């Protein structure tokens, strides 16, 4: 198991407590996290990534209690172990495409082998866009740049939050294929959280979240 969660409960402010399902993700596995809006998908991803200490329960990252580590240590491990793709593509508009992709290495303070950036950009059809400001890219190009950044360091886990909710069928297919291929290629486990039912038949393993109530699996 590369990542597992046990009996996670999150209480925040006035909101009712969220009971989140137990997950266990094997190295290289591909998994879909389904659930309606507000069911806690993003919350669960935050907990798994070490960004949100759960009120109850624990997260095991490679058999280690993730939240036993300091927050700075979790930041460092997250940078090296996780690749993230957000629903709204968060490239820094003031940086170039290459700089945006390299942020993954810079923030995790990890060196990248020479040629890795160029290879990756070429593979994702961004070779000629490397030195453009990311704000000058199309939606699709931005999404590919975000994927390039997520896989740059060959993370053990590739996590995407609603990567397809704004896309048409053809693009949804293309993006899921790209994510699955990249995950396979870099040996990463893939976890996609979505309420997009179009993705259901692309994954063998599906974990479902319900709007309220107790844990579901």
């Amino acid at each position, binding site marked *: 198991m590369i990542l597992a969660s046990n009996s996670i409960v999150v209480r925040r402010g006035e909101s009712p407590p969220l009971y989140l399902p137990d997950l266990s993700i094997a190295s290289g596995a591909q998994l879909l996290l389904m659930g309606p809006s507000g069911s806690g998908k*993003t919350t669960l991803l935050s907990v798994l990534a070490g960004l949100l200490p759960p009120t109850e329960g624990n997260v095991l990252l490679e058999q280690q209690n993730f939240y036993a580590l300091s927050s700075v240590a979790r930041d460092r491990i997250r940078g090296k172990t996780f690749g993230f793709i957000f629903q709204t593509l968060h490239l820094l508009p*003031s940086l170039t495409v290459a700089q945006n992709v390299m942020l993954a290495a810079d923030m995790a303070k990890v060196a990248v082998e020479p040629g890795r950036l160029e290879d990756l950009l070429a593979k994702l059809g961004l070779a000629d866009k490397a030195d453009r400001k990311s704000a000058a890219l199309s939606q699709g190009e931005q999404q590919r740049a975000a994927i390039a950044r997520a896989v740059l360091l060959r993370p053990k886990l590739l996590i995407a939050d609603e990567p397809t909710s704004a896309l048409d069928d053809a693009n949804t297919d293309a993006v899921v294929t790209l994510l699955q291929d990249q995950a396979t290629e870099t040996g990463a486990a893939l976890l996609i959280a979505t309420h997009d039912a179009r993705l259901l038949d692309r994954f063998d393993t599906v974990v479902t979240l319900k709007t309220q109530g107790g844990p579901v699996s």
Partner: protein
Amino acid sequence: MNAVSLAVAAIRARPLQSALCILSATLGSALLVLVFLLSQTIASGFQRNAEGIDIVAGAKGSPLQLVLSSVYHADVPAGNIEMSDYLALQRDRHVRQAIPLALGDNYQGWRMVGSTPDYLKLYQAEFAQGQVFAQPFEAVVGAATGMKLGESFAARHGFAADSNDIHDAAMYTVTGVLKPTGTVLDKLIITSMESVQTLHSGHHHEDHEDAQAEGHEKHDDHDAHDHDEAHDHDAHDHDAHDHDEAHDHDAHDHDEAAEEALGHQVTAVLIKTRSPIDRMNLPRQINQSSDLLAAVPSLEMARLTKSLGIGKTLILALGVGFVVLSALILLASLASSLAVRRYDLAVLRVLGASPGKLLLTVVAEAVLLSGVGTVIGLAVGHGVGYIAALNIDTLQGIVLPETFLQVHVLDGVFLLLGLVIGITASLIPAISAARTDIAGLLAKG
């Protein structure tokens, strides 16, 4: 991409706001450094010019006027004193050195000073060319006059170049050119006291002959000379010196009397006392027991500086105002840019940056903006001071322009101050950036 290059990218992404931050920091620091440098160089210039002069004695009038006119050559003297007064001072056992000054002429606006070579020594003047005056009508010129060795010239009566009363009876010759001293000496033409006195005693007689030789058309528009013929003989008669009544050109009378008086008078005496106690007592003694006025340059200048201090305080307040304004602009700019960049910061966190790194990025942005602004401001302050010192007449001889081109301790102090203010202004936005609730932001999409 480290914290600094991220900050640079953020600064370049908002050129207008960044420029505003830099500009306000520039204005504040430029004003502050300019005022401090000016007041410091002026104060040290005052001091440099009065070095070795404990007391000035001259005709009764205002002490400040006496000091300004005879030490700084910035005002018109109130009158002259008798040669015998000077000789008495020279003999006084409390006086170590008494240097006479005979003022009242100029050449192209450069004041002429009739004195002794001791006057040059007072300022430790060195010769760039030539040597000290030895014969009558030899003159030594200050570096700023731009006059050449061997140049010959006629003095004009008065302190301004537009006087039309020319002493063309005798021509002066430049026998020495001084190196710059950074004192008022640079703007003076120094000659022997005897030269000035001879010129004034012989004024009417010889000037007239000379003017006649030049022809009458020229002579006619020389108002000052119109009546010269009427009392040729008077000019030779210094001791029975009351020709005031001899003619009725009232406006001219006084001027002429003063002018001729220089033939046997001096304008002021620069005194170095034998001991500090003498320096304290001698002025009172002179003021009480003679017709002379004694003034202490350091006291008069201290009083003047104090009254100028109000202006300095005002400009300083303006500078401080700009510094505070720049801090506020920086704060507002950082806060608004962070509101826009919240998600960027969250992304950095997800990519593995620690909260400390976000804090550092924001602080780096502030340090860059305020640092660049302060450095530009310091350069501008120095530059404006330099240009002012070069071009404002009253500053010449008091302020050395070159001092504005040198790095000053104040620069370090102001740079540090600018950075501290920048960091302070950035602390609140920086801490809020570091504390960003990443999970909450992600949940909002």
